């Protein structure tokens, strides 16, 4: 099969390709990027794409947009192996893997309803991040979030 026939989506001129997303997490990546029904630029999403290394992966391409650090941190929490390709004028201008931060602030809601970070107090949620697998430990109440992290993103 030729490369042209294999290609399912057209290349983008300017924007970001988020590759090697953990299979099943593409929708959550779109949520992080705030892509909803009325989004104006071209967004392409591929799910369960065969991958030699990962078995399956998801891919998101978003035109005319480069991601902010907070968005990259959030993506790293739900898919720590994702890679970011910055595209400028059809060329890959930069490529890197997302990096798990040691601490995230104001990004995740604590699962403990009795945690001080879930009250009217002027306090921003803070979590220590552990790797392999990703675990978030609330610095206030010490509860740990290990599963369905995407559901707890603010």
């Amino acid at each position, binding site marked *: 099969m030729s490369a042209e026939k294999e290609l399912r989506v057209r290349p983008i001129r300017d924007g970001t390709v988020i590759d090697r997303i953990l299979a099943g997490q593409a929708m959550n990546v779109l949520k992080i990027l705030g892509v909803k029904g009325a989004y104006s630029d071209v967004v392409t999403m591929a799910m369960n794409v065969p991958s030699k290394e990962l078995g399956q992966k998801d891919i998101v391409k978003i035109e005319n947009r480069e991601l902010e650090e907070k968005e990259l941190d959030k993506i790293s929490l739900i898919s720590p192996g994702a890679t970011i390709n910055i595209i400028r004028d059809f060329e890959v201008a930069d490529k890197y893997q997302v990096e798990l931060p040691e601490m995230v602030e104001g990004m995740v809601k604590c699962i403990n309803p*009795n945690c*001080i970070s879930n*009250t*009217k*107090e002027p*306090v921003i949620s803070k979590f220590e991040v552990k790797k392999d697998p990703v675990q978030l430990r609330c*610095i206030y*109440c010490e509860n*740990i979030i290990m599963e369905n992290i995407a559901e707890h993103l603010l």
Partner: protein
Amino acid sequence: MRFERRHIISMKDFTRDEMDYILDRATKLEPLARGGRSDLLAGKILALLFYEPSTRTRMSFETAMLRLGGGVLNLGSKEATSIVKGETLADMIRVVSTYSDAIVQRHPSEGSALMAAEFSSVPIINGGDGAGHHPTQTLLDLYTIRKESHLDNLDIAIVGDLKYGRTVHSLTYALSLYGANITLVSPPQLKMPDQIKADLKARGARVRETENLEEILDNIDVLYMTRIQKERFPDPTEYKKMAGAYKITIEHLENVRDSMIIMHPLPRVYEIDSSVDTSSHARYFEQSFYGVPIRMALLTIVMGVEV
């Protein structure tokens, strides 16, 4: 050792050397706690912010402060304060820390003491944050064990609600730093969470579990009883049955070691029969008293006063 102006939030903030330092300081101050009078903290003010009921913690802090010549400010009932107007804890702390040299706080939300420390200009001492930490209880427990038994090569059984009990989690953490042999005794539904057990073992404690209280009584130095809350059992008959199985009476003590001591953070409900109170093993009222020298030690330490 540098403690001045440090917050006391969780036992996990302490090294073993620091714990020993506090216990040594409490030993020095114990004669004053027994009725002496000192001016060590003259002119200092301790604010007591208790958003939840407390008897021993609040009163022993007050006693400690008064015995050292200092004064106390009491929040009083919530109804008489700006809390009913919806004032946040953060604002309360900002204000009260300008009135006082240290604040003792009890609040129903986990993490509230750590948050308070972020807003306070004076040391915060955590007197209990929901199901979180209660470090001064643990320090007085350690003091009791060291004074009435021994901390090295300790065989201790901890009985009751090991799943939710904050006292127990802090205490076992501290004991793990002393390499204690810990036997956990609880009904199956109130067992200590696996994560905490794994942490204890990783730090050098030897931990075993049983549901049978009677089988372990004769080979321990300390029996640490805790209250099992009725609310944990949806079925009242189940609670009654279980409460009976984890109750100590004088008959249980026939073959225990002579030096074995019984502790309880109080209040007790059914766990220790009053027949045990007069036995040579009971130490729970002494334990309650030791809250005073421990809190004296902490107050002098965080207020930067040499003893």
